[in-house]
Each structure stands twice: as structure tokens, then as C-alpha cells.
């Protein structure tokens, strides 16, 4: 592979991977909203 192809490939893959990890990490670490929220797994009593 020539160096410009490697540069473009690494930059594109690197930036997309970094952004994916960054945003998913933000999702995982975002403080939960007070109940009732949209998600049933964290409910004290299961929804219907």
C-alpha cells in the first residue's frame, strides 16, 4: 500500500472508531433520568 492510502485509511477508520467509542461511552456514563423513564429494566416493578 502506498503511504497516502495508508494515511487516508487509518485516518478514516481511526476517526470513525474514536467517535463510535466516545459516543457509546457517553451513553453508558450518562446519569439516568428520574423514573418513570423509557426503559423497563431499571423499574422497581416490571411493566406490563
Amino acid at each position, binding site marked *: 500500500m502506498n503511504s497516502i492510502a*495508508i494515511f487516508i*485509511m487509518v485516518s478514516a477508520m481511526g476517526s*470513525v472508531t474514536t467517535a463510535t467509542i466516545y459516543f*457509546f461511552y457517553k451513553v453508558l456514563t450518562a446519569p439516568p*433520568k428520574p423514573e418513570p*423513564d423509557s*426503559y423497563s*429494566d431499571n423499574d422497581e416493578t416490571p411493566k406490563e
Partner: protein
Amino acid sequence: MTVKTESWGSRVGLILAMAGNAVGLGNFLRFPVQAVQNGGGAFIIPYLVCFLIMGIPLLFIEWSSGRYGGKFGNHSTPYILDSMAKGRIWKYIGVFGIFTNIAVAAYYTYIESWTMSYVFHSLIGTFEGMTQMEVANFFSTYVDVGISTTGIPYEAVIFYILCLAINIYILSRGLEGIEKVAKIGMPLLILFGVILAVRGLTLGASGQSEAFPDANAWEGLNFLWTPQFDSLANPKVWLAAAGQIFFTLSVGMGTIHCYAAYVRSKDDIALNAVSAGFMNEFVEVVLGSSIVIPIAAGYLGLDWVLENAGFGMAFQTMPFLFQQWGPTLAALAGLFWFGLLFFAGITSSLAMGTPWMGFMKDEFNWGKIKGAVTFGLLTLLMGLPCVFFFQEGVFDEYDYWAGTVSLVIFALLETIVFSWVFGINKGWKEINEGSDITIPSIYKFIIKYVTPLMLLLVFLGSLITPLDNDWIASFNSFTTGNGWLLDNSSIIKQLTQAGLKEQISLATDAASISVLENRIFYSNMARVQLIALFLVIVLIIYVSYRKRRREGRATL
């Protein structure tokens, strides 16, 4: 406000389901081919620009429209749009959000059934010792329903019905079932993809043979990623990039609205949308570009790839290439490759079932089982002609009108409704409500002006595609008074079946003419079916509207 009887289990489950909805076969098969055909490494620049100015805004629009409609108990596009704007017409624009899903599911689940069948054939060693031509012919035999590759009569039909039955079963479990599949399917898809991508990136020249002495995986990667910066000035490349972003994110279908309709107002949608969108981009840019092209170039050489790059490589070439790794690794590679395509397919086809189920539940109080079964029956009814007349072009006709043109039309209309009828100020407030990230305010401008303009250009680009996709030559021809020559792939020429008619006029033997005339017949038959489906959904929406009026629930 309606009490929500169904909900997502967790936020991660919702994001994986949304990402699964977006990730499809095109991530692995369409993206690398588009990149190869549009300037290699330079394609990524317009591609990422279009992702930021068209893809992300469309995700914001669809997530927020869905959540907004959900506040009023609406879980599919007809009444989601109805709740956003005054006037009877809007709910009929929403027809696309149900129609497209059923029509696309009809042929998409057929491809999904091929992946199931190919997992089976990979594991039992069907492809062992086959030449490349034999593997390619195996596919043609498989889709010819009259011939069986396993001894099971009507094998393709049986796999199709089995695949549809799996979809119906999971859909009948509601969001819980969909979320469970996404939580298993998406990590497995990424795992399988990473294993194959590592192989693609490290194959190098080890696959050279007497027949292909110059084969080299890095040559494939080189071609894919070496920029041709002059192509950036070509409108064709930008339209291709916009089209790829559009199709890869599964926007313009109504599925995102439906999933988001189960999110409460105070919960975030902006970060969810961006996170699911980037997950799709990771699968496409990182994994999608590292499997098919480098592995094929590694064994068959770059010249072969340039001549044959296309959708068919997944089924007609990859099983042969895996055979070069020995029987055990070939079986495993077949499992990983077709397994990942299966998960990519099923997480999308499940999403296609939800708008119909959501609509029938909202309007006629249908339960999950009834909704899932009727979706399956409608899909089967539309899909069987695809299966039986695949080689006569019914499949392609569905893919073009339902899987391509309808999406662009609906996305354009919904963007106009969101930005200009609902109003960008209300829309912006809706996007930001409960948001866990700060969205740059430039996006308000982009959503109002840039995204609709981009979509309009994509639509016009498809409507009047110039001859040989050469925009510059056609523009010059037009300005010098020689008219605008349309390509046979343009919507206008497709409508008149100009391509087939041209082939008939050029054909010299009676057999070829008969085959082409048959294709016109089946193409018309497919169009009649699509129009009938569209009208049936319009009628159902009209009936639901009358019911709402009787119950005093109609908005106008």
C-alpha cells in the same frame, strides 16, 4: 397523553436495535463497491461530509418526530406526521412509512434466507472442491426454485418461509424480542466482522496462485483508499456519497420513528441518534471496507475485482475464497460471513415489521401476535413473486421502486414537514429536549436548509440521471442547446422501461426478444402489486381516520 403499555428494556438495547436497523447487507456489499467506483479514498471525504450534513440531521428529524408522535400514542408515520401538522394530507404522506417496510421486507427477507441457507451449506461442506465458476453457478441454481441443491424440493421457498417464520415469531414477542435479538446479534456481527476484517487486512500476497499470480489483498486496499482528488469535483461522486449515507442509515423508511415513539419526552434522543449512527458507520467504514474487496483481491487480483465488484460477490465469490483456507477454516469463515450477513439482515427486517404492528395496535387495538402474523402474511404475499420470478426481474423492480425511490421521496417530504410545516423552532426544541449532549447550533440551519436541499439534489439526481452518469458532459450538452440526455437508470427512463425496450430493439434472435418481453411483463406485474399494496394501506389509513372521527380522536 397515552399510557405506554410497551417499552424498551434498556437504553443500550434501544441503541443496539436502532444500530441493527441501520446495519444491513449494504454495509458490507454496497459501501466498498461505491467507494471503488467513485474515487477510492477520496470517496470517504464526500461520504463523511454527507453523513454530517444529511445523515445526522435526518437521524435527529426521525428520532424526534417519532418521540413527538409517541406522546400522543402514535407509533407509526401516518399519525406521527398527523400529530405534527394540521391538515388531513399529512397522514397519507406517512403511508410510505408502512408501505416501504412491507415491500422491502418482501425481498429483503429473501436475501436473509439466502444467508441462512449459505450458513447451512458452508457447515455441511457443499462448496468443498468447487471451482469459482461452480460456486457462482450454485447461486444461480439456488435461486431457480425448480432446481434443488440439497434434495429438498423448493428449497429456496422453504428457506424463505422459514426465515419469515423466525421474523414473525420474534416480532410477536414485541420490543422485548427485537431488543433481545439486537443484544445478541449486534455483538456477534461485530465479532464475526472483526475476525474476517483482520484476515482481510493481513492476507497480503499469500493468496497468489498460478491462475492469479499478481493477486494481493493490499492492492485491493490500495485501490480502495488511494484518493483521486479530481473526483471531488464530479457531482456523480457527491450524489453517490449522499445516496450511500441515505441508504446505510435506513432513513426514509419509518422504522426509526416507530422505535423512537416508545421513548418518553424527558429521555435523550440526540445522543442516542448519534451513537447508533456512528455504530453503523463503524460497521460500514471499518469492517465493510476490510472484508470483501481485500479478500477478493488477495485471491483473484485487483483486475478481477474491478470487473466484478458488486452485490453478487457475497454469494457467488466469497464461498470459493473461503475454500482456500482449508475445509475447517472455510466452514468457520462461511459461518462468520453468512452469519454476520444474517444478523445484519434480521435486525433490519424486524424493524420493518414494527410500523405495521404499531399502526394496527394504535388504530384497531391489534395484539402483537395478530400484528406480527398479518405482517408476515402480507410480506409473504408480496414476496412469493420475488422468489418465483427472481430471474425475471421482480426482485429488482421492488428494490428500485420501494427500496430506493420511495425512501428518497418520503425522506424529502418528512424533512420539509419537520423543518417548514412543524417548524424548525419547535423541531429544534424537540430534538434538544432531554438531550445528554449539546448539539452545535449550526445544525438548526443545516436541518432547515441544507438537508432538504441535499435530499432534493439526491432526488433530482435520480430523476434525471444523465447519460453514463456524466453530469459535466450532460450539463455542457444542455447549455449548448443539445438537450439533456437521460441515462436508462434515471427514474424517468425506468418508468418507461426504456432500458428493456432498447435491448429488445437491439436483440436479433427470437429467444432473447422473448426473454426481454417476459421481463417487461413481470416488471409490470411487480409494479401493479406495489401500487395495490400502496392503495390498500391508503384505504386502511382512511378507515382508521373515519374511526378516529367517530371516536372524536381525529385531529381535523
